[in-house]
């Protein structure tokens, strides 16, 4: 099972992206709990690309490749998020200090933290003018 979807990096298309990913992993037979983690992860990554990757009024596209990998009786979902926006390496972003008291702590940075926590593997690659972010999760 392999699926690619592509649309403009605009918030109005968030639902198209998320619904497509959900439809795909439902066909792969994932449980509601796994679907929750994958959809939350995808939403955080997509909203970030929609917000930060491209200049306002010059929004490019987002392409998502999803694939089911089967090995040793395990089923893994691999999703690759590709944009042509400015260089951004999620792995170089430090996690927020979760132990800091909430009064002194800024409430950003949680999105990336959730992605790293909910997925089994996260990897980043810059390819010419593309950001290529891959996540893998056993489903």
């Amino acid at each position, binding site marked *: 099972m392999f699926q690619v979807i592509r649309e403009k990096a605009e*918030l109005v298309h*968030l*639902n198209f992206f*998320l619904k497509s990913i959900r439809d795909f992993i439902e066909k792969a037979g994932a449980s*509601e*709990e796994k679907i*929750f983690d994958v*959809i*939350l992860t995808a*939403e*955080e990554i997509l*909203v970030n690309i929609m917000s930060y990757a491209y200049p306002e009024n010059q929004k490019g596209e987002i392409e998502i490749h999803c694939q089911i990998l089967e090995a040793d009786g395990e089923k893994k979902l691999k999703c690759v998020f590709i944009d042509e926006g400015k260089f951004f390496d999620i792995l170089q972003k430090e996690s927020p200090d*979760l*132990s800091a*008291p*909430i*009064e002194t*702590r800024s*409430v*950003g940075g*949680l*999105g990336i*933290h*959730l992605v790293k*926590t*909910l997925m089994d593997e996260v990897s980043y690659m810059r390819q010419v003018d593309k950001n290529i972010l891959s996540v893998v999760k056993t489903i």
Partner: protein
Amino acid sequence: MSVECTRHHNGKVVCKFLGRIDTTKCIDAEKVVMESIEGAEVIVFDLDGVEYVASSFLRLCGKASHKVDTNNFSIVNVVPSVKKVFKVSGLSEKLNVQ
């Protein structure tokens, strides 16, 4: 997603959320929630019937909690899947997630 905030005479504001709170829905709700809790002494977010939240909602909770003294902000009726999101974000205790 819908939200309804009720102000009680003792300075307590209860906001009841319903449905999936994704990023776009949360952006829409933010203004009305922040206006409704203005001047409150105790804030309760009731998530009965909310089975999904994105990080933008965590941010809204953090922002709202700053409006009152610690312990005067709480989040109630949280289903397990949503509880997990608060937990892995390190916010369960700070936001009194119940």
